[in-house]
């Protein structure tokens, strides 16, 4: 595995917070897509002024590649401890690539009710979209080769780190 350092995740996160501050509804709910998006949603809910409910979403049951790859181990519970009906939701993911996870997450949200509005916040947009999905808020745009994935990790002290990994083929 070939791993390469990327810009500091905490600096990109600060950029993202700057772009979101003032734009986010006071009672907007933050919903993070597991696992990187969940860490970011927790931080954003604390950093952005307002009273924000916090939810987590695992899109495994809504993915479009189930018939090709089957169900991956380690699926977590989706937990949305607020009324989705009529809510303003900030969907949070770490790296936006094809847009397929976001599509799955939006579909899943609608099985809980009809939100008033969904916005998308991502730490990194790496291009390569396969669906017409764009972020509302984005920390940084990075380029990476198709066979490289950008991965967000969190260490024991809660520090975030971005790295690249060669995708197994």
């Amino acid at each position: 595995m070939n791993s390469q350092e990327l810009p500091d995740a905490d600096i990109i996160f600060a950029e993202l917070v700057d772009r979101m501050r003032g734009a986010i509804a006071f009672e907007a709910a933050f919903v993070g897509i597991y696992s990187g998006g969940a860490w970011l949603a927790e931080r954003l809910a604390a950093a952005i002024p307002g009273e924000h409910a916090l939810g987590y979403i695992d899109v495994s049951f809504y993915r479009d590649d189930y018939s090709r790859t089957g169900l991956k181990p380690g699926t977590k519970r989706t937990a949305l401890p607020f009324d989705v009906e009529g809510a303003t939701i900030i969907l949070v993911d770490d790296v936006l690539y094809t847009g397929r996870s976001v599509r799955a997450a939006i579909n899943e949200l609608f099985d809980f009710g009809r939100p008033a509005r969904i916005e998308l916040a991502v730490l990194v947009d790496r291009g390569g979209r396969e669906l017409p999905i764009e972020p509302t808020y984005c920390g940084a745009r990075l380029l990476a080769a198709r066979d490289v994935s950008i991965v967000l990790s969190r260490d024991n002290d809660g520090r975030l780190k971005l790295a690249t990994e060669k995708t197994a083929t």
Partner: protein
Amino acid sequence: MRNPQLNADGELTHLLTLEGLPAPIIRRILDTADPFVSIAEREVKKVPLLRGKAVFNLFFENSTRTRTTFEIAAKRLSADVINLNIGVSSTSKGETLLDTVDNLVAMDADIFVVRHAQSGAPHLIAQHLTSRRATHVHVINAGDGRHAHPTQGLLDLYTIRHYKQELHHLTVAIVGDILHSRVARSLIHGLTTLGVPEVRVVGPKTLLPASVEAMGVRVFHDMRTGIEGCDVIAMLRLQGERMNGALLPSGGEFYKQYGLTTEKLALAKPDAIVMHPGPMNRGVEIESAVADGARSVILPQVTFGIAVRMAVMSIIAGN
């Protein structure tokens, strides 16, 4: 020889029995069941995982509860469910089991949920599908003869794990009619595979299989010593309809010796849970006050059973 439940990559493709099923696969099913439990709390109690797949419930033996929970599980996964009451259709016209299966495969079945009075019938169907190279079709055993009832065993394991978290310090007593019980066999295999240190079976000699000790359990004929200090008591239904000949003096006598009463339950640990696979015979194997009491997890078992069956279907259909 390869485990007939696993595909060439060692992944679960049929669920026939818990005997010989590797612990990581059992744990994976239990882990996967967890997020499915919460789907019942949604506005739309469905996920799209098995959309476009056809699940055929092949029940050669009557069952309302198990068939219903499989049907709910499949529907919550967005599969199409076809219920066949085979006992009163094809076989009565002389069609063989495997001809029935071939016909249903020709109707594009993806999963067969099979219950049969003959031990080994689901296994036979799985082998037949392999010989026909129909590897995209999966079989789940919903109870075969006295042999196995793996999804019941899994839901029992899920329930125990839910209430007790760690399994490696538990004492579990399985009480009653072990001889006729595929539920007991599946639970014993599951518990020993997952490393539960003490599994006890409690019942009269006439209702215990001859070589039950070989399954790695301790045998008790006295209920009071058998459930003493237990963390989990798994009661079994007295299967009157499977009994040929007089294995028991009478229902009343059985209740006196092996019925789970409030007084006997006091011998188990104070936080012991009481399970029962249903349907219950109140006053035959369990006192109403126990069945409805604070330690009873009998109804949660039913709820967890749906999630466990969703997990099994979604894992095998993806492999």
